[in-house]
């Protein structure tokens, strides 16, 4: 589970946790959007959105992985993209499973 900053007011921390759970609940759909994108443009947008959101919710490494995949698309590196997407999917699934436990 992502950390909530210790300096955050307890009331705000509880609210943050609540929106964090909302974000986690939407991760499988985000992964599905990335995997089943109709074309590379749609995949790039889905990765870009994940890259922009994940860090704000306390998952900076997930954002970095999405950015790696975007970079692979920028450089037309198919093998790097496959590896990045696989790594991203595993990390994303791990977050969802950790939250369920």
């Amino acid at each position, binding site marked *: 589970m992502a950390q909530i900053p210790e300096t955050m007011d307890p009331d705000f921390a509880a609210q943050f946790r609540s929106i964090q759970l909302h974000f986690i609940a939407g991760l499988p759909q985000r992964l599905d959007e990335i995997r089943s994108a109709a074309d590379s443009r749609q995949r790039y*947008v889905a990765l870009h*959105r994940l890259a922009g959101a994940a860090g704000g919710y306390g998952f900076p490494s997930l954002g970095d992985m999405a950015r790696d995949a975007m970079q692979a698309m920028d450089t037309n590196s198919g093998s790097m993209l496959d590896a990045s997407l696989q790594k991203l999917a595993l990390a994303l699934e791990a977050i969802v499973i950790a939250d369920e436990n």
Partner: protein
Amino acid sequence: MEKFERVMCVEDDPDIRLILDFSIGRMGGFSLCLCSGGQEALDKVEGFRPQLVLLDVMMPEMSGPQTLTKLKELPTMRGVPIVFLTAKSMQEEMEELLAFGATGIIVKPFDPMTLPDNIRIYWEHGRGTDT
């Protein structure tokens, strides 16, 4: 002395709108107008009269730069800082975005704890000037 109270955020991703609401609205205590796209921002700007606009760059239908250009044509937006929100952080892209007339750029992901202070700095330095 003018008090900084009203912020408009234009962002197509609902998860980012949620964290903007938490950070700027709830933690920062600002009156917030959340818009999911450029057209909605243009429809609401006259009624809300934002003192600062946070504007996503990559949006479907109307991009951030297109929205900025249209907002700047409005007399009510004269001297109102517009700050881009972007997940990209290449220097070249930053310079291109600033050339559209933005006051500044905040790179996503942003820290929800410090975002209210950051936008206050942009407002203090950018208000009343048209870039």
